[in-house]
């Protein structure tokens, strides 16, 4: 028997088929996604239909590479990009493209919601989590303020992975993990928070799907979709946001384990059996997708400076490795503050990057390369220390690829 794992990301969709007793991956498929083109700066949107098509292509590719009977697949789970706002009409069809996690056009709406709840501190007291610009809440208010005619058609709000689950099973629901990234749910009680709903729209609750425990299945793949692939009876688990699913996929389901994911941004998250609330709001107080919690740190500066540095001196990854090997820990006293794109944690949105401590002795490529790498890790470690000060006791870090 086999299980199918789907990861619908921002760049594309991946499908993995794994053998259930051994965990062995026996089939893979990938299909690229398009972004909506021609938007204003800060906007980032995708058509939910793109995800459906890409998922179907990725599944077909994975089945072809696995060389098994499709009927041997008995269950599947869907991971999706967090925070995206999928607005659906009364027929559960998308009204417009989804605004994604990295859409920053809703700064005003974010501030409006926070102010309606009495400011940042009060927002955290009421929901257990602070509201970031990327979260779903401000995207809903944005639609109401900017596209009233679309908003009037809005009957159901889903997140990207919920939309794929709906397509597969016909069931609209939202599990706690991804719901914790909406900015609409009290992450402690795991109920919709009335004050924030009212701040957006007094009737918002009617547009939200039922909240469910991630241990509950969504349902079975509908007959007409199962037939497309030759599936028989395939159970669909709750799925979840990509970070929550990556936590499970790295075995981060008990206290002491942390996942470190390095890409353009860097994230560290760790399972907790109880909510971990940061009164400063630097650490995101998410729920996980096994039934626990998943405090998460996200910094904005990881591979960005190394890419610029490589471009400047025309270096490849091997050159970079060799430069770093040629230097000593601490880069002879050269320190790099990596804030090329500003920073979220620590909260320094207007910061820029800084080389500090250059002298005649340490002014060379090797030290600069090492200082850049060390600076990005020191920056992550500042946030990691904050996580520890909130009570986490990490024992092991599990590093995972660039996402």
């Amino acid at each position, binding site marked *: 028997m086999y299980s199918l794992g789907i990861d619908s990301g921002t760049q594309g969709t991946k499908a993995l088929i794994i053998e*259930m007793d051994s965990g062995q991956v026996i089939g*893979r498929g990938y299909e690229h996604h398009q972004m909506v083109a021609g938007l204003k700066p800060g906007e980032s949107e995708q058509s939910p239909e793109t995800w459906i098509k890409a998922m179907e292509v990725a599944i077909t590719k994975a089945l072809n590479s696995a060389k098994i009977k499709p009927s041997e697949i008995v269950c599947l789970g869907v991971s999706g990009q967090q925070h995206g706002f999928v607005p659906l009409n009364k027929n559960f069809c998308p009204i417009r493209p989804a605004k994604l996690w990295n859409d920053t056009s809703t700064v005003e709406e974010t501030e409006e919601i926070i102010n309606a709840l009495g400011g940042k501190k009060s927002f955290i007291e009421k929901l257990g989590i602070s509201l970031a610009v990327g979260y779903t809440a401000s995207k809903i208010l944005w639609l109401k303020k900017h596209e009233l005619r679309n908003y009037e058609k809005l009957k159901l709000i889903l997140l990207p992975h919920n939309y794929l689950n709906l397509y597969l099973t016909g069931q609209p629901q939202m599990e706690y993990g991804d719901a914790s990234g909406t900015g609409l749910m009290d992450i402690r009680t795991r109920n919709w928070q009335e004050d924030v709903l009212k701040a957006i729209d007094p009737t918002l609750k009617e547009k939200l799907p039922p909240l469910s425990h991630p241990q509950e299945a969504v349902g079975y793949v509908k007959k007409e979709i199962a037939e497309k692939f030759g599936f028989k009876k395939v159970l669909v688990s709750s799925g979840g946001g990509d970070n929550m699913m*990556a936590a499970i*996929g790295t075995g981060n389901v008990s206290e002491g384990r942390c996942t470190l994911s390095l890409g353009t941004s860097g994230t560290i998250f760790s399972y907790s059996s109880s909510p971990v609330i940061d009164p400063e709001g630097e650490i995101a107080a998410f729920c996980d997708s096994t039934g626990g919690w998943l405090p998460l740190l996200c910094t904005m500066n990881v591979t960005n400076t190394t890419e610029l540095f490589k471009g400047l001196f025309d270096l490849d990854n091997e050159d970079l490795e060799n430069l770093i090997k040629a230097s000593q820990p601490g880069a002879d006293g050269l320190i790099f503050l990596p804030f090329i794109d500003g920073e979220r944690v620590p909260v320094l949105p207007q910061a820029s990057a*800084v080389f500090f401590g250059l002298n005649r002795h340490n002014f060379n490529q090797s030290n600069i390369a090492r200082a850049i790498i060390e600076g990005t890790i020191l920056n992550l470690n500042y946030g990691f220390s904050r996580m520890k000060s909130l009570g986490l006791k990490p024992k092991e870090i599990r590093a995972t690829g660039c996402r």
Partner: protein
Amino acid sequence: MANIFQLPVVTLEEPESAAYGAALQAIWTYKKEKGENISWNDLVNKLIRKSPMAAFPDPNLANFYRELQNQFDSLWRRLSLEFPKHRQFIDSHFFKVTSE
């Protein structure tokens, strides 16, 4: 990296952690539907394989990196008021910086 975090850093055989996690969650849910109550820990420990690539902290460097971390944190704290001033300087004389 292990030296800065002062923790072991391990990597896993399957790098597509989100897709792999989705498949694992499906297995857990399937087993539960069949009446088999398996713990999350048992499931992931049985199925997830570590890759040989791992790094362990050198205890001799622990104090050194702690000192470096303090320098690093002290620098950005002291510069935190200078950054907005400098951003304004760039915005008014050179180009508009766009970031979050």
